[in-house]
């Protein structure tokens, strides 16, 4: 008996275990959720695979798939792998020339293309992809009158396979059992923003190790529901979706259309979800907007119980203290009044693992979802080594991306680059030895480390803090590396800070910051706390406001390495202004210009004294110019003596 060490073998094992009764997948079609059992999946894959063999699929052949999340996508991938081939996913929004690049580069012999839209793209590049023998589609709409021999339907291939199977009943099982754990399973082409996309080669072993070790900290039941809406060409969907499905029997649901994902999540109420940070932020914004339109009773309940939710979440997750009985009771009423209904609206009633990935998530968003009972965790990974780190259980820290997944080893290189070693590390880039050598390097012991190109550091609890790409880092006088973007991003999570530019570099002994207060929020705070002010200039220079902002800067300092703590900052007397060329129209900092314009302040921060007299020219919107004169104070958080 063979070990279950490839994806197709996992399919056979699951079919043996669950048979023709248990639902494996569901898809909403014509408004109704339709189920497919494990037997359905098995047969679909078997006949498709045998059909491909009839058309000449050889072991090691590459086959591309372009399509949305459909059972047919998963089946196609498994059929290719059952035939000992490699599946190459392509994103559906790729333009014909991008598709042409990936199809040619991967030497694909077949292409699965979902529908008319994708088939049209392939017909456009037909002459440039001569190796492709057939294009196979699974949605017929609009293709009825296409007369090309080159295009074949999914069903036709399966019919071929079915006929063959009748004469050779054991062929498929034997074929699957020939698969080796070290065989390549998929190529994931990384989006090339600067260079051409690179095809990361990922083996069955990579996928299965990645899946099994993530399951140790985040388990799944065969009754769990999952909604497949992340692009299936992406490594994340291959792990959290397909491989989890095969290894645990978790039910995978496919949305009706890409536009219906939100509705479908609500219908399915999945146990596990991964959204981008942006999407979580959006969901919170939706609540704020809808609140304005709702009935007064809902509004009042929200006003009454949200603070309770925030308080309890604060005690539970941040202070980590037992929650008093009174708070528990209030929280329990809140649960009925608003938390549960809110979770229901988003389909989050049953979610056990809610992940965010991509960018850093604003702590306010995390606090909001914790208040309504959803503990969002961060997950950090890459195509090349899958899940690097994640938050496990209740051990969630806002500023980190979690701890290494079991089996993952993490090391920080001298230049702050994050290095990963473990069973998930990929096999190299297809036909790109140079890039492979750069990404995969072995140390003295012969252990292979994947060089992520990301920079970060580990905190005292073993959590990883992600900073930026290595090439964005700046070296300090001390030789320490620091990421302006990262520190600025963390500071901007404060509602009182609108913009900030940090300063550092080889000529500078420590990090300093030029900070723009958020006039609206700080103004509101000032009114509430009885701090009188007249204008922006006046407000920005109030000692109380300096104290307020100092708290935020110190908070960020607590989780930065000591060498890159912010020692001094100033609160600017005016906002950075795109009209004056200080920001781009998309509100990105024009660093060089800001360095020149605020040279006086910068010099003072690195020199003597703590007050700068500024005369700044101001360009009004109508084109006139004026000047303002004021004193700007330098706040010192870490004094010279402390530095020594």
């Amino acid at each position, binding site marked *: 008996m063979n070990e279950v060490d490839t994806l197709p073998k996992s399919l056979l094992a699951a079919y043996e275990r669950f048979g023709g009764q248990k639902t494996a997948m569901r898809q*909403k*079609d*014509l*408004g*109704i959720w339709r189920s497919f059992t494990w037997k359905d999946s098995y047969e679909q894959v078997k006949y498709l695979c045998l059909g491909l063999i009839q058309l000449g699929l050889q072991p090691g052949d590459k086959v591309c798939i372009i399509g949305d999340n459909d059972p047919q996508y998963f089946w196609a991938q498994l059929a290719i792998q059952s035939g000992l081939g490699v599946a190459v996913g392509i994103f559906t929004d790729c333009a014909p020339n991008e598709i042409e690049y990936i199809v040619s580069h991967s030497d694909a012999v077949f292409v699965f293309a979902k529908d008319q839209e994708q088939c049209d793209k392939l017909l456009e590049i037909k002459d440039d992809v001569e190796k492709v023998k057939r294009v196979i589609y699974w949605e017929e*709409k*609009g293709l*009825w*009158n296409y007369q090309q021999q080159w295009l074949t339907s999914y069903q036709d291939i399966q019919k071929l396979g079915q006929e063959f199977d009748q004469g050779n009943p054991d062929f498929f099982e034997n074929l699957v059992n020939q698969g080796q754990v070290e065989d390549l399973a998929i190529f994931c082409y990384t989006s090339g923003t600067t260079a051409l996309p690179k095809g990361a080669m990922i083996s069955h072993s990579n996928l299965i190790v990645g899946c099994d070790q993530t399951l140790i900290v985040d388990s799944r039941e065969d009754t769990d529901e999952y909604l497949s809406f992340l692009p299936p060409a992406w490594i994340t969907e291959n792990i959290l979706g397909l491989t989890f499905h095969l290894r645990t029997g978790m039910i995978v649901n496919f949305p*009706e*259309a890409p*536009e*219906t994902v939100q*509705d479908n999540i609500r219908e399915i109420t999945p146990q596990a979800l991964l959204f981008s940070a942006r999407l979580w932020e959006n969901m919170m914004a939706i609540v704020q907007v809808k609140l304005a339109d709702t009935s007064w009773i809902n509004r009042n309940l929200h006003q009454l119980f949200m603070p309770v939710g925030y308080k309890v979440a604060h005690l539970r997750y941040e202070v980590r203290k037992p929650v008093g009985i009174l708070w528990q009771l209030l929280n329990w009423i809140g649960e009925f009044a608003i938390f549960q209904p809110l979770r229901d609206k988003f389909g989050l009633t049953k979610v056990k693992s809610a992940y965010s990935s991509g960018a850093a998530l604003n702590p306010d968003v995390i606090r909001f979802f914790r208040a309504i009972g959803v503990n969002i965790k961060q997950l950090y990974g890459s195509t090349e080594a899958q899940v690097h780190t994640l938050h496990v259980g209740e051990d969630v820290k806002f500023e980190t991306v979690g701890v290494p997944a079991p089996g993952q080893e993490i090391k920080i290189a001298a230049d702050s680059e994050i290095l990963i070693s473990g069973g998930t590390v990929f096999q190299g880039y297809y036909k790109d030895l140079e890039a492979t050598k750069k990404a995969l390097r072995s140390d003295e012991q012969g252990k292979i480390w994947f060089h992520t190109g990301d920079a970060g550091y580990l905190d005292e609890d073993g959590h990883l803090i992600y900073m930026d790409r290595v090439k964005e880092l700046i070296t300090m006088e001390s030789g320490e590396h620091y990421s302006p973007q990262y520190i600025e991003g963390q500071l901007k999570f404060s509602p009182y800070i609108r913009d900030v530019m940090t300063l550092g570099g080889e000529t500078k002994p420590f990090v300093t910051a030029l900070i723009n207060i958020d006039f609206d929020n700080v103004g509101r705070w000032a009114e509430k706390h009885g701090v009188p002010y007249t204008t922006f200039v006046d407000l920005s220079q109030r000692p109380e406001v300096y104290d307020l902002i100092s708290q935020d800067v110190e908070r960020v300092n607590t989780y930065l390495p000591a060498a890159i703590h912010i020692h001094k900052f100033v609160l600017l007397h005016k906002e950075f202004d795109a009209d004056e060329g200080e920001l781009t129209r998309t509100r990105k900092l024009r660093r060089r210009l800001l360095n020149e314009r605020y040279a006086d302040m910068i010099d003072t921060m690195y020199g003597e004294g703590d007050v700068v007299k500024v005369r700044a020219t101001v360009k009004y919107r109508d084109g006139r110019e004026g000047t303002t004169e004021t004193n700007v104070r330098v706040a010192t958080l870490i004094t010279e003596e402390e530095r020594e």
Partner: protein
Amino acid sequence: MTSRSTVLRVQEINLVFGGIQALNNISFDVQTGDIYSIIGPNGAGKTSLLNCINNFYHPERGKIIFNGQNLTRLPPYKIAKLGVARTFQNTALYTGLSTLDNLMAARHIHMHSGMLKSILYWGPAQREDLRHRKVVEEIIDFLEIAHIRKSIVGALPHGLRKRVELGRALALEPELLLLDEPMTGMNQEEKEDMARFILDINERQETTILLIEHDMGVVMDIVDQIVVLDFGVKIAEGIPDEIRHNEAVINAYLGKPEIQ
């Protein structure tokens, strides 16, 4: 193709509003399975002609023969039952109902259960409802409007409303589909989508389509035959290539400034 039959025959239609001759002796034939377009400057009488076909307007003279039957004496609902569906220049949907209900409403001409049966909703009435729901769901899938199935139509953007209206016309399962400016007010992408839907409808069920459209790019790309009207008079008829080079058409469209 040779075995094409004439599905619609417009014969010497005259329509007068007071002193204005809106349509003057208009005649043309539409073959089964064609996409046929009526073009012309504003006020040429295009919509009036469409209104004559499903008898919103009653022509003074002339005949409109659909599958051998004269439509000029029939009320609009009977014409719908015969298999002529249409959409309007300014969408005319039930704005307070959902997309699904708008489409289901169009199925009424195919429903047979009486009031009592429908109230009981048991046995035949339920089966009938399910059957119609399936037809409607297929249209929803076809037009890619699943995400707005339960949305109130009044709150939808213009482009989607146009699509819902097309869906409602399709729910009648028409043999002849009249589309009055299906792409007005749409952006380029929406127009391309709509053009694709029109082609697919035509291809899938051989539905004959008669459409009015201003976007010449679209018309020239997708239609088989064009008839050109100007001030109620037919000035040209033919395939897109002929029309493109027709003197009279160029004059009517380009020669005189028109009020847009």
